């Protein structure tokens, strides 16, 4: 920053992520020290490093603070309905099978109102990369309880502390059939970037949970300090345990957060199964859909 102030405007170096961002929409809506921006940066870096054709990448978000991600990415970006990013992405993937379809959205969006879609897309192993930003709360609407809020943490709809059991997301994803499951925090920017890069190379329903600070609501309601103190907390309390049994990945209130890659296996995707099944049953009569998505009149 000190370097930048000595430069004139025209001398500004372009930010490395700029080619992937809709700079005209910046500044974004996120609060100071919110973790969502970190995820955007890691995702952008991973995309560039992976060497995928950026014209064939799409990003879908639902609704929420995290749901605003799609709106800032200079990619084929879609802002879907609250909770429905995954069925939207399913439709998109089946409409344009050659695209790399990414879903980036919040915990409330993807496993609260969208929970049913989440487990079924994992069960079908639809080819998409799902990055879930878990801030343990409904940020956009002002701090209500989420299906991830740890027991005893406060939210505006659990003013006396939460008593509902939260989801253990990697376990939910793995037991629903996801072939790639990982969890990182916003502190682990390198590992998160590598994980996204790696997941881009895999196929099927790939799931990465990113534990992110929401200083404005979750941290404030729970007196956890600033975004920076949240990062210190991750530093002191995140434990990397690759291959950990997903049953052991619950997150308690202000307790250790086990991170790592927990599942990385191969399983035929929805479209692969479809092709295999109909080829067997219908033989020559089966007309598989091309990567561009069926009959197109050029």
């Amino acid at each position: 920053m000190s370097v930048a102030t000595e430069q004139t405007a025209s001398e500004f170096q372009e930010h490395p992520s700029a080619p992937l961002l809709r700079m005209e929409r910046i500044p974004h809506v996120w609060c100071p020290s919110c973790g969502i921006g970190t995820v955007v940066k890691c995702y952008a870096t991973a995309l560039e490093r992976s060497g995928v054709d950026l014209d064939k990448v799409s990003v879908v978000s639902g609704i929420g603070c995290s749901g605003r991600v799609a709106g800032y990415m200079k990619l084929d970006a879609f802002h879907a309905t609250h909770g429905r990013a995954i069925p939207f992405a399913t439709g998109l993937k089946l409409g344009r099978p050659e695209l790399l379809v990414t879903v980036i959205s919040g915990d409330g969006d993807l496993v609260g109102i969208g929970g049913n879609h989440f487990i079924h897309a994992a069960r079908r192993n639809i080819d998409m990369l799902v990055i879930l930003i878990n801030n343990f709360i409904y940020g956009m609407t002002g701090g209500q309880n989420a299906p991830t809020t740890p027991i005893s943490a406060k939210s505006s709809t659990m003013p006396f502390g939460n008593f509902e059991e939260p989801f253990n997301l990697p376990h939910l994803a793995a037991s629903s059939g996801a072939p790639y499951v990982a969890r990182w925090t916003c502190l682990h920017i390198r590992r998160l970037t590598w994980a996204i890069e790696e997941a881009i190379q895999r196929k099927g329903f790939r799931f990465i949970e990113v534990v992110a600070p929401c200083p404005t609501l979750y941290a404030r309601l729970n007196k956890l300090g600033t975004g920076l103190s949240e990062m210190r907390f991750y530093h002191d309390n995140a434990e990397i345990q690759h291959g950990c049994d997903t049953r052991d990945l619950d997150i308690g209130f202000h307790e250790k957060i086990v991170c790592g890659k927990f599942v990385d296996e191969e399983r035929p995707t929805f479209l692969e199964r479809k092709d295999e099944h109909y080829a067997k049953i219908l033989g020559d009569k089966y007309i598989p859909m091309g990567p561009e998505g069926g009959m197109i009149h050029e």
Partner: protein
Amino acid sequence: MPQFCKACGRCIEACPKGCITMGTEIEPATGFTPVILNLDECTACGLCFSACPEPYGLQPTINEFETELFDPATHFGPRTTSAPTPVEIPDQQVPLPELEPLVLKGNHASAIGALLAGCRHFFGYPITPSTEGAELMAKLLPQLDGVFVQAVSEVATINMMYGCGGAGQRSMSFTSSPGFSLMVEGLSYMIGAEVPGVVVNVMRGGPGLGNIAPEQSDIKMLCRGLGHGNTHAPVLAPSTPQEMLDLTMLAFDLTMKYRNPVVIAADGFLGQMTGRVQLPKTLVEPGIPAWAVWGDEMHRGNLISSIYLNEQDLEAHNIHINEKYERMIDSEQRADLFFCDDAEWLVVACNTPARMAKGAVEEMRKAGVKAGLFRPITLWPFPIDLLVGLLPNAKGILVVEAGTGPLEDELRIALSYADVHSPPPITNIRRFGGILPQQQEIVDSLSSLVEVKS
């Protein structure tokens, strides 16, 4: 027996003597081909009875086999217990001490109204600009012998209300436009099964995610589109925090009286604005309605369901529902008339735009123009009976709304059903996207109407 045989063939398999064969004649009552019994070889082993899955299918007779249908009472005697006819346990009004008026947000006033009306069950899903209502309920209900549940969606919310209301309890939710869209399926079921419940829709800009600023475009959905089938519900439109409380209490009254959901159409501005609110003189201690599936002996005969497979039954059910709608239309029309008695220029507006319209009418009166404000409080049923009497004086009607015209549509539909085929000219001011019509706009519009006429 033949009427109850579904021709599954299990008894044929079961019979060691080959007494049973599949029939070939279609039984007119069912469309199946019941089995044929030839009992010459029958040893009365009873295996076919055990095999038959039909409760009224094959069963033993006392003396000899026959294929007549039996009343189960012949075998098992009269039913040992029979549910008594349930009786209504009425609500009680409990006097409240007189209190100074409170200063409350519209959403909070509505939540307090619900508590005073005896609601102790809140189900909801956060959505701006309605969430303060849910948040207050989350604080208060655990201290008031009640339950607050944050559902995982509005679909879950409305079905929780369906269940809770089915047990005869008063339940409610706060939501805003996109959330209300998700509730309409459940509302159709509640209307079909005649289950009460109150939903406060703090309307915002649409379509789609739109924005969180006030709009009134949902009036179309609330009055004409409450889910599939023959559906209507009283739609109440408050325009002050005081009315947020009063109309929520009224909504509970109506929802229990008619066994039909009731919707409160508020707008984003009203939900957020604060104002003085006088608490009522009494609060309600709810009883138990006779129809409730309450879960005791008295209510055991009750059933909550919206399925009527037989066409005649479903038609009769709809006729019954229509009779309820007729009763609502006859007795529940409400409107607030402001300077309407001699009004030549009628402004029609509800919710927050009615506040601007009121200011505009006052301004016009000061300028000597006979303007009046007709403010529907029930949007469905539209208070047409109160309007018709004002029409002979009226030279023009100006509909002011923060929406693309659904209030005007309701007005025009009501006029047409009231056989008013040449009403005074209707003009409008429509703002949307979260922008409210302003007093000056209304004054300007009225002034130009008056000028043109004179």
